[in-house]
C-alpha cells in the first residue's frame, strides 16, 4: 500500500514535470539510464564505449499531461502518464507528438516489459490520434542484455528516479552549479558540455499537494513582454474525485489561442461519448467563448482560464477572463438581413453559443466575467442527434 502510494506520488510529480517542459536541453545521459546500469555487468561494458562528449537532448514543448489508465491486464504494475507535446513551439500538427511515461516497479527490465511499452505506446497513439509517440521508461530496475538492445533499437528514453530529479532541477534552474557538478560526479563518461537550457517559466500552479518529495516547486512569476512571451498554454488535470474529470487550460490572450481550447474540448467530448455533431457544437461554442474572452482581455499579461469538467450527466465548460466585463443583456439577437445593411457585421458569437449548448450562464466574479456552458451527456438511448434546445439563463 505504501509502495502504491509512493508510485502514485511519483506519477503526479512526473505529470508536473512534463508540464514544465518547454524545449529545454538536458544531457542525453539522463535519458539513457539503461547504458549506465551499475547493477548489470553487461551494461558497464556498453557504458564504457560511449563517447566522452554527451550531446544534449531537447525536451518537447508540453502543453498538457494526464494520467493514462489502461485497464488492459497487460499494463499491470506500470503507471503511465501522457504528455501532449510538440517538438517545436507553434502547435503545428506536423510536430505534434505524445510522450508516454511509464513508471515501473519491476526489479529487472526484460524484453517483456519493453514489448508491453511498445504496445501501449501504439495504443495511446491510436486513441489520441497522434501518430508520433515517444516512450520514456522511469525505473530503478536493472536491464537485461536483450532489453538493452531492444531499447537502443527503439530509441526508448530510460531514466532512474534520480535522473528525473536531476532533469527537474535542470529544467527549473539551469544555472545551478550544484546540479551540474552533481551530474558530472555521478555519470560516466564525464559530461563535457551542457548548454544552459533556456527556461520558460510556466505561469501555473503545480498541484502536487500530497507529495512529500516535491520535484517541482511553484515557479516564481516572471514578467515577460509580449515579444518575449511564447504561446505558453498550461494544462492541468486537477482532480478526478466524485466521478468528475476536470481539465484546466490557461490561454495567453494571443491570436488563434481559442483553437487550442477548442481542440482540447473536442478530444474530451469524443472521449466521453458525444457524437460527431455534438462534438462539433461543443467545439464551436468553446471556440467562440474563448475568442470573446481573449478579445475582452486587454492586458496581455492576463490569461483566459478555461475549465472543462465532465460529470456523470453533463459536460461543463467555464471560461473566465480577467479585467473585462460582459453583459449579455446588452447584446441583441443579430439578424442577417439587418447585418447586411449595418457597417458592423459581427455579434454572432453569443447566439451561436446559445444555440449549440444546453445551458449558458454569464456571471461576474471578483476578477472579471465567467461564462459557464453545459451540454448534457448523451444517454445510451439517445442517438445524440438533436440540436439541444437553448435555455438562456
Amino acid at each position: 500500500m505504501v509502495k502504491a502510494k509512493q508510485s502514485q506520488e511519483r506519477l503526479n510529480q512526473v505529470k508536473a514535470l512534463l508540464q514544465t517542459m518547454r524545449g529545454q536541453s538536458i544531457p542525453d545521459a539522463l535519458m539513457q539510464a539503461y547504458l549506465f546500469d551499475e547493477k548489470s555487468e553487461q551494461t558497464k561494458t556498453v557504458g564504457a564505449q560511449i563517447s566522452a562528449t554527451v550531446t544534449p537532448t531537447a525536451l518537447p514543448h508540453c502543453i498538457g499531461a494526464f494520467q493514462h489508465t489502461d485497464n488492459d491486464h497487460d499494463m499491470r504494475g506500470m503507471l503511465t502518464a501522457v504528455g501532449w507535446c510538440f517538438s517545436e513551439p507553434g502547435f503545428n500538427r506536423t510536430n505534434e507528438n505524445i510522450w508516454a511515461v511509464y513508471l515501473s516497479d519491476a526489479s529487472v527490465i526484460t524484453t517483456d516489459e519493453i514489448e508491453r511499452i511498445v504496445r501501449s505506446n501504439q495504443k495511446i497513439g491510436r486513441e489520441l490520434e497522434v501518430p508520433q509517440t515517444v516512450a520514456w521508461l522511469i525505473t530503478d530496475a536493472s536491464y537485461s542484455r536483450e532489453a538493452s538492445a531492444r531499447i537502443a533499437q527503439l530509441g526508448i528514453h530510460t531514466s532512474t528516479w534520480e535522473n528525473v530529479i536531476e532533469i527537474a532541477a535542470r529544467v527549473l534552474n539551469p544555472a545551478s552549479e550544484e546540479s551540474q557538478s552533481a551530474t558530472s560526479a555521478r555519470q560516466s563518461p564525464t559530461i563535457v558540455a551542457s548548454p544552459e537550457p533556456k527556461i520558460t517559466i510556466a505561469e501555473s500552479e503545480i498541484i502536487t499537494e500530497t507529495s512529500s518529495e516535491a520535484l517541482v516547486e511553484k515557479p516564481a512569476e516572471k514578467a515577460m513582454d509580449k515579444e518575449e512571451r511564447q504561446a505558453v498554454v498550461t494544462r492541468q488535470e486537477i482532480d478526478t474525485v466524485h466521478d468528475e474529470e476536470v481539465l484546466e487550460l490557461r490561454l495567453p490572450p494571443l491570436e488563434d489561442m481559442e483553437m487550442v481550447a477548442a481542440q482540447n474540448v473536442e478530444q474530451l467530448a469524443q472521449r466521453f461519448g458525444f457524437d460527431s455533431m455534438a462534438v462539433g457544437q461543443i467545439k464551436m461554442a468553446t471556440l467562440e467563448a474563448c475568442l470573446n474572452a481573449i478579445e475582452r482581455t486587454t492586458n496581455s499579461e492576463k490569461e483566459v482560464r478555461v475549465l472543462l469538467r465532465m460529470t456523470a450527466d453533463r459536460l461543463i465548460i467555464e471560461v473566465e477572463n480577467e479585467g473585462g466585463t460582459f453583459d449579455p443583456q446588452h447584446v441583441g439577437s443579430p439578424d442577417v438581413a439587418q447585418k447586411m445593411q449595418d457597417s458592423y457585421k459581427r455579434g454572432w458569437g453569443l447566439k451561436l453559443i446559445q444555440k449549440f449548448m444546453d445551458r449558458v450562464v454569464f456571471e461576474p466574479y471578483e476578477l472579471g466575467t465567467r461564462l459557464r456552458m453545459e451540454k448534457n451527456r448523451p444517454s445510451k438511448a439517445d442517438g445524440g442527434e438533436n440540436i439541444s434546445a437553448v435555455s438562456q439563463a
Partner: protein
Amino acid sequence: MQVVEESSYAVIYPTGYLNGPTGKDIDAQCDQIMARGMKRIIINFREIETMNTVGISTLIVILEHVGNREGVVCFCELLPVNHQMLEVLDISRAVLIFETEDQARNHLENL
C-alpha cells in the same frame, strides 16, 4: 488559396481556419474576380475545418459586396457542423448552399 475560373463563373477554395484574416482574403479574391468581369462565384469550403463567427461576419461582407455589384455567390461542401452554424445563425437564408460543387456549378450554369 486556389481559384479556378470557368467561362462564366469562378470557384474559390479557401483552406484552414476561417477567421477574420482568411475571410478578408476570400473577399479580396472575390473583388479581383468581379473586377475581371466575372459575376458568378462559388466558394467551396471542403478545406475549411473550423470557422469562427468573425470569419462568418466576413462572409456576410462578401455577400454584400457581391450583391452590390449584381453578382451571385453560393457556397458548397461545408462540413456538417459548419453548415449547421450557418443555419442556426439564419445566414443560410441569405445565400444558396449546395452539398456538392457539381450542384453549385449546375445552378450557376443554368442561371
